[in-house]
């Protein structure tokens, strides 16, 4: 299989892992965690690489994940002291950790192929050439196996905790907590997210990780009502972003990271605008209809109360005419009266209040 195809395959499986992760983060209202982690894992990663000079060492993963957990601990510390506001503390902590990482990379790793740009963008183009070998056998790119393993881990986690996750999605009051066994779940879950971030770092870089963890799941969140649908749609949109971005990057001769992130964002935009029911366009028409309805009911109410319509700020002449045409009002001698249709429309609106 050619290098390009492998790169595409790795991109797709990375996208899937980010989408699965991100779906659960979005449901738990914790999207911020992905942004923070993708910044915080860098110093651990850079330090480990500097010390070991071995790209394949598992210590890289462990060290980076440790960086992630440190960030989570530090943020909680800042937040619990209530001295600094929590958004600000997150921003400062991971900016600080990220800067440390960048300085390590710029200074200590100057002569390696691990440099500041890779941090942001990842190294997808080179990834297919890093092979996993079992003795003499070439099993394919290491990153492919790594990301596939991560996806498996995530699927296992999701299957095991499916009921709890579903409850959270339906009950908005549970959102932000894992319901039944909060602390344990949270720890396991954040570890999985950290591992995903670190594993994907080499392929995707910090920007794309955040983009893929948030944009496709957010778009799916707008389109679905059930957890299973959310996961499937998010995964599908992530795969779509990966493929479109990849294809765009080839004639442009640039790293796929920008185009993939851009596609994910564009897809979100399209969903946001045009989604049936929750999209902006559809909402606009719904709101117009509701508003017109409310005004009509108001006119009906005022007629029923026999009060003058002078205080209405809207143009009530056309509304009156429309109501008469639709037989909700009727003109009898000099007065206006509600018909039975008009009365029932008014009654149902008042009942809804």
């Amino acid at each position, binding site marked *: 299989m050619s290098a390009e195809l492998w790169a595409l395959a790795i991109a797709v499986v990375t996208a899937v892992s980010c989408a699965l992760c991100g779906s659960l983060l979005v449901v738990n209202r914790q999207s911020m965690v992905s942004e923070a982690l993708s910044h915080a894992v860098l110093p651990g990663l850079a330090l480990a690489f500097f010390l070991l000079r071995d790209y394949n060492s598992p210590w890289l993963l462990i060290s980076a994940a440790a960086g992630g957990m440190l960030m989570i601990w530090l943020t909680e510390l800042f937040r619990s002291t209530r001295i600094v506001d929590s958004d600000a503390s997150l921003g400062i902590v991971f900016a600080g950790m990220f800067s440390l990482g960048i300085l390590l990379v710029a200074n200590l790793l100057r002569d390696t192929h691990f440099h500041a740009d890779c941090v942001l963008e990842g190294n997808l183009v080179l990834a297919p050439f890093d092979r996993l070998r079992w003795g003499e056998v070439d099993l394919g790119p290491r990153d492919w196996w790594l990301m596939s393993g991560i996806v498996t881990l995530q699927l296992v986690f999701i299957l095991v905790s499916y009921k709890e996750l579903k409850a959270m999605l339906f009950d908005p009051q549970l959102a932000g907590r894992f319901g039944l066994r909060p602390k344990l779940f949270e720890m396991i879950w954040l570890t999985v997210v950290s591992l995903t971030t670190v594993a994907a770092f080499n392929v995707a870089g910090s920007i794309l990780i955040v983009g893929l963890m948030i944009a496709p799941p957010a778009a799916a969140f707008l389109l679905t009502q059930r957890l299973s649908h959310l996961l499937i749609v998010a995964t599908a949109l992530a795969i779509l972003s990966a493929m479109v971005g990849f294809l765009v990057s080839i004639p442009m001769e640039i790293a796929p990271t920008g185009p993939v992130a851009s596609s994910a964002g564009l897809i979100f935009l399209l969903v946001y605008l045009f989604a049936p029911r929750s999209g902006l366009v559809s909402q606009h028409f719904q709101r117009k209809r*509701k508003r017109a309805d409310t005004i009509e009911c108001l006119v009906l109410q005022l007629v029923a109360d026999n*009060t003058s319509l002078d*205080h209405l*700020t809207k143009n009530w002449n056309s509304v009156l005419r429309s109501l008469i045409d639709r037989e909700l009002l009727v003109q009898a001698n000099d007065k206006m009266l509600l018909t039975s249709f008009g009365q029932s429309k008014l009654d149902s609106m008042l009942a809804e*209040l």
Partner: protein
Amino acid sequence: MQTAISTSQLTVTYGANTALWNVSTEIPQGKISAIIGPNGAGKSTLLKAILGMVPTLSGSVDLHLSPSQAVNHASDIGYVPQRSSVDWDFPITVLDLVLMGTYGRLRWFQRPGKREKEAAMECLKQVEMEDFCHRQIGQLSGGQQQRVFLARAFVQQASVYLLDEPFAGVDAKTEQMIIEILQQLREAGNTITMVHHDLTTVQSYFDHVILLNKQLVASGPTSDTFTQENLQETYGIESDLLRQSSKRDELPGPQE
């Protein structure tokens, strides 16, 4: 009865929700009035609509201020919002907060001067908080915070005061102090209206009540309006508290 504020067919919507529907009522001048209703009844919205802070779908609000009252400054109404709407960790002192009440009288590039500071200290004395004037506001208790909020409204020297749940989270002693100050204001001819949540104190504190649940249920003098029937219609439930709250006035209730 002279009217300070009247609304006609006031209707306010937020997106798809209706907050107030066709509310026509009058707030009497020189009295202490309560706006009462369940959660989400639009009580705060009514205050905001009177102040012109929210866009209305239809209806109008009329302020009937006497000529001498209307001429003075832009801030004819002293507004005391809910205490929860503020960040108490903000780096300002008690005096700073009260001085904000003078901003309505100052141009945008002006800062409060000696005259404003003296007025602010006067108002702080009124609420017995003058010793705290250099404290950061986060260091105050709930009752103290509410008193400072009041002082800020008083420094506006308005003739009408609108308060949103001023007794929420406030200790009994402070509540007593506040209601006494408000009663003094009433004796001086000012109009006070507040959103109130404690049904047990309605009859002792208020001359006039407005019962609201998105629509106007009833409004009038407390003795006539604060009845079990009206309360039931407002809150939609039967409860001992409601019965207790209205029983002091032995009005004949509906025949069971």
